[in-house]
């Protein structure tokens, strides 16, 4: 296999594996920027993956070709609603955000599996028949070298993920809404004094996070596994949090980190057939994202600082 062939093979798989991570990680950026730590991304992704598959299986006769996209929409709505389990205790009831996030992970996995057994009477769902179609982007796909790398046989979901990241950057840094969101996460009392409704902004931040994590989970199950079982989502949510930190809470940095982690995941799965890579023990590729996150946090790659008020419930009138 020539070097170029390797790139043609590995870059599309990296983007393919990165798409769910990008979506969930961008969601986490919204939540943390508003001042709520969302450890529960994993649990929301499980719910999203489950909803995506079940919706696809049961509405395939209604929506036809459009089914996978409709399933994403369903996962988006359910994900946002499910994130209220974090938002209400963490924002309104002053609960510890980390504890609540852990509970959200337990609840997500339990509810999804309970429902699977209730509906299908066994531990996993059927395989979906209507999948996302791959397509060549007209014009761009015929560019030499870059065409086969980026624009040939692409999934619509990958494009969606990258568009979401860019839109998130615009919303957070270029709009009044984004400024308020960041203000609430950095110094809620100052924001409150200026007339911003802290609780409302935080609810919005957490629910955007829930919506995107739901979509991320659904993208994972609808493009990669094609069914849902207890092992469908195993660590992608935490990897998304890692990507957010590695990207220093910035949407574009987060996207870059998620793409890199996608590459590590792709290599750990398909690396066996690539020269040189097959000599690296798999375990190194598997732990790479997590090790890098720790190194990034330890300050070896510039200092990564969380939003200042992240993780602290805002209590009016308290100094």
């Amino acid at each position: 296999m020539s070097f170029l062939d390797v790139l043609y093979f590995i870059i599309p798989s990296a983007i393919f594996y990165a798409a769910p991570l990008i979506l969930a990680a961008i969601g986490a950026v919204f939540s943390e920027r508003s001042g709520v730590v969302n450890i529960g991304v994993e649990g929301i992704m499980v719910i999203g993956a489950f909803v995506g598959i079940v919706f696809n299986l049961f509405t395939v006769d209604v929506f036809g070709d459009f089914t996978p996209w409709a399933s994403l929409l369903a996962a988006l709505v359910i994900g946002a609603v499910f994130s209220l389990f974090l938002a209400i205790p963490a924002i309104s009831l002053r609960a510890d955000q980390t504890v609540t996030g852990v509970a959200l992970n337990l609840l997500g996995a339990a509810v999804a599996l309970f429902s699977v057994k209730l509906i299908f009477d066994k531990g996993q769902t059927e395989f979906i028949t209507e999948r996302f179609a791959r397509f060549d982007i007209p014009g761009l796909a015929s560019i030499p070298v870059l065409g086969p790398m980026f624009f040939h046989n692409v999934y619509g979901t990958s494009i969606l993920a990258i568009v979401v990241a860019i839109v998130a950057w615009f919303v957070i840094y270029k709009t009044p809404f984004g400024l308020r969101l960041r203000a609430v996460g950095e110094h809620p009392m100052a924001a409150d004094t200026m007339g911003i409704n802290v609780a409302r902004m935080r609810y919005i931040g957490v629910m955007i996070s829930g919506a995107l994590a739901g979509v991320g989970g659904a993208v994972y199950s609808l493009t990669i596994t094609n069914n849902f079982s207890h092992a469908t989502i195993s660590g992608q949510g935490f990897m998304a949090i890692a990507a957010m930190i590695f990207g220093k809470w910035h949407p574009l940095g987060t996207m870059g980190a998620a793409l890199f982690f996608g590459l590590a995941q792709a290599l750990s799965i398909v690396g066996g057939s690539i020269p040189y890579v097959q000599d690296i023990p798999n375990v190194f590729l598997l732990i790479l994202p997590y090790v890098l996150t720790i190194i990034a946090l330890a300050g070896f790659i510039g200092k990564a600082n969380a939003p200042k008020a992240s993780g602290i419930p805002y209590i009016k009138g308290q100094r």
Partner: protein
Amino acid sequence: MSNRVINILVPVISVIIGLIVGAIVMAVSGYNAVDGYIALWNGIFGDSYTIGETIRQITPYILAGLAVAFAFRTGLFNIGVEGQLIMGWAAAAYVGYAVEGLPKFIHLPLALIAAALAGAFWAFIAGVLKARFNVHEVIATIMLNYIALHVSNALIKVWADGGDKTQRILETASLRSPFLESMTQYSRLHWGIIVALLMVVVMWFILDKTTRGYELKAVGFNHHAAEYSGMSVRRNIILAMTISGMFAGLGGAMEALGTFEYVGIKGGFTGIGFDGIAVALLGANTPLGVIFGATLFGSLQNGALNMPNEAGIPTEIVSIIIALIIFFVASGYVIRVLLEKFNSKKEGK
């Protein structure tokens, strides 16, 4: 109502609400909630076999709960109990089968110490990251959980010559006892429960009876004040994490030397470490409270296994109930306010 009574009432009320909501979920899903809870009860206390299995399940829960609670008391949130437990499990199993020719009174303690050290080392990494590089322990331990999972799987693969589980540990390293087994219709009940209860005493002793424990708590309460009074904040943070990890590692030893007697490649987490957070939270981070929390959640988890057979209800209902209980305990502020309102009304009359 004193503060003390309210502190006990909040978890009790949370458990009751959790069970009620669980019943509603069962009813809405078309199951018979009464049959469900009867099956759960029988799965916990049905006969001597299920009681033996319930106590076996409680054992690692106590240790995981102690690990989380100890860290909490010193101002740290150790989400990494899961990873530390996995490392302890692997270390105990390795020493259990690979070290040959030792008498039981050396081999068994050696395997336990190996597990404690492995767990302690894994937590020590997070402690150093926090103390030296200011890395938040929640994120560091989450990442270390996954690293532990993949690293231990890779090690097991090597130990098992490419298989998916190691050979059985030797008799001399086993916590199992023919006496306990015959008493409980051959359940997997083992002596680990004694180790776990001993550790409860150890945690109480360290925190309440030693100068070091006082320092650890002081750093947790206010590290500036501790610093000014001459305590080393960094050293205490590292020490607190290490001790916490030691408890977690021993939790892994219970699985390696008692329940399973081997270590296998894992597709995902055991869940014991995360349930340990629930145990500590319910037990208000006190040694005695951890016993109660572990008894409740260990019993629920073990009793759940009986629900599919006897009532046709998926075991996950119990995980849903546990998650709900955590939500309610975490939102204890509301229960507290309601209790205080109720109280002041009564006093007003």
